């Protein structure tokens, strides 16, 4: 056959007769796509800058502490360890989650891709679980990496590394569990907020606003107790005495600090005393209260997320 103009030879359509793995494969695909989206893989450089920057920022404290520990020794006063790591990176983690998590839900709705997903062998719940677990995985990788760097740093800094491991191996399961607690929290809330707006930016601003603004609000409502302790940047207090509202109820108001909620659970997992803001107040409450509060603040947004997608109109 002679083609006058060198046309591309059409191979003809071939039917697909390979394996079809149905719903399980669909779930995996949603998960993998979620992880890739979060990290900006398969996208332009613009999408990689933010996660990269935030990843480095969360890793940095672990590296710095390891280096300091290797110089001044493990027992240096005030050097944070595994117990204090999540508290230290919590602000960074919030910024990371608030900015990246909406990437996994908002564009799908804004671009209309969601309607292509839901006609495939995939339910709304499959989709949400896939997205949620994708961002959870990314967050877990992030915080575990930091803790691992810290652990390796401490082992190397120890005079007798072998003994250090024997004495401190329990920290590993502790930080694994605490990391899960923190990651579930910082995954669920931003995703729930993302289900209310198609604009990623507004979701991010709302989440960060919620976490940042709750700090001074809690500060005001717990003034009395805090004035003895670690008042942020203050010169000490002029009023030492307790007040009717903030005196008795301060320990309850301390729960209002959203960012601190998983940290209180973290503090229960580690034996070390936490001297951070509001932790001393929450300690006055029975353990079950902060745990119940944590569960409410993860299950609640989780339910809201599911409920929002139940009623989605395509």
């Amino acid at each position, binding site marked *: 056959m002679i083609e006058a103009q060198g046309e591309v030879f059409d191979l003809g359509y071939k039917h697909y007769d390979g394996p079809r793995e149905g719903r399980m494969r669909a779930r995996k695909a949603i998960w993998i796509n979620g992880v890739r989206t979060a990290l900006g893989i398969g996208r332009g450089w613009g999408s990689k800058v933010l996660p990269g920057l*935030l990843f480095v920022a969360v890793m940095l404290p672990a590296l710095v502490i390891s280096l300091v520990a290797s110089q001044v020794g493990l027992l240096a006063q005030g050097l944070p360890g595994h117990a204090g790591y999540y508290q230290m990176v919590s602000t960074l983690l919030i910024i990371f989650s608030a900015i990246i998590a909406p990437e996994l839900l908002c564009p799908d709705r804004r671009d209309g891709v969601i309607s292509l997903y839901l006609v495939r062998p995939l339910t709304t719940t499959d989709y949400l679980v896939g997205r949620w677990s994708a961002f959870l995985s990314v967050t877990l990788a992030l915080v575990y990496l930091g803790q691992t760097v810290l652990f390796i740093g401490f082992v190397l800094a120890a005079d007798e590394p072998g003994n250090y491991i024997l004495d401190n191996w329990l920290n590993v399961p502790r930080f694994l569990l605490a990391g899960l607690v923190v990651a579930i929290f910082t995954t669920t809330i931003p995703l729930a907020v993302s289900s209310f707006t198609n604009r990623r930016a507004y979701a991010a*601003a709302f989440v960060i606003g919620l976490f*940042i603004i709750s700090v001074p*609000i809690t500060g005001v409502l717990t003034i009395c107790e805090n004035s003895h302790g670690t008042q942020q*940047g203050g010169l000490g207090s002029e*009023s030492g005495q307790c007040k009717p509202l903030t005196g008795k109820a301060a320990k309850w108001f301390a729960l209002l600090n959203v960012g601190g909620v998983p940290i209180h659970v973290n503090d229960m997992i580690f034996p070390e005393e936490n001297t951070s803001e509001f932790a001393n107040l929450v300690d006055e409450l029975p353990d079950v209260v902060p745990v119940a509060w944590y569960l409410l603040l993860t299950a609640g947004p989780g339910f809201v997320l599911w409920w929002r997608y139940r009623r989605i109109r395509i």
Partner: protein
Amino acid sequence: MEPLLRLSLRQLASRSRLLLILLLAALPVALTALISNVEGKFSNSEFINHILDGLLIAGILPIVTMVLATSAFGNEMEDRTLSYLVLKPVRRWLIVLPKLLASIIVGGLVLIASGVIATRLGASSIVGATVLVLDGSLQAALAVGVALFAGVVTYTAIFTWAGLVSTRAIAFALIYVFLWEGLISTFFGGVRYLSVRGYTLAILHGMDDETFAPLKDRVIEFPAALVGAAVITTVFFWLTVRHLRRMDVP
């Protein structure tokens, strides 16, 4: 210029956004009223640290200006209406100026009202070393108003530029505000010379160093803050105009 300003104002004043902004601005007033009425006392440093700095200047001020200013051009880009503006036979800085003014008017009015009312409420119940009489609280309220105005103007200039150059302006703005000004500045004092929050606090302290004495240790020099705010505003205004002049309008 005037019709453009009116148009920009109308674009900013979407109902849900206004409601959210008003809600945020009501927070400092509500909290101050609550504490000063229930407790009957509110120490100077407590009020300044928690309400003025923590809540208003470090939290609500950047969030409100960010949402307003990044959408000034951001929404025009998203709706592809920027070309209508740019094709007008108007100098580019005359397009940027009304956009800035609109954000400053909306954000400024709400935030200054919030700050001044909270200060008057807080001052009336302040006890301790610096008891404020009405005169003093007026001066303090004036200081709060001026400092917040400077903050709104400077943030607006930065965020308007960010909204024009990037589709992810709010993400970068959030990182700047809460990482650079919030977190890093607590470790490195020098950052305050390059931080709008630093300027705002310094102007507050500079205008009434008696009332705002608790800020003494963490503010930069008053003149430095004024110059810094002015320079940053001018530079970003110029950058915005320049970018608008050079960009390919979609």
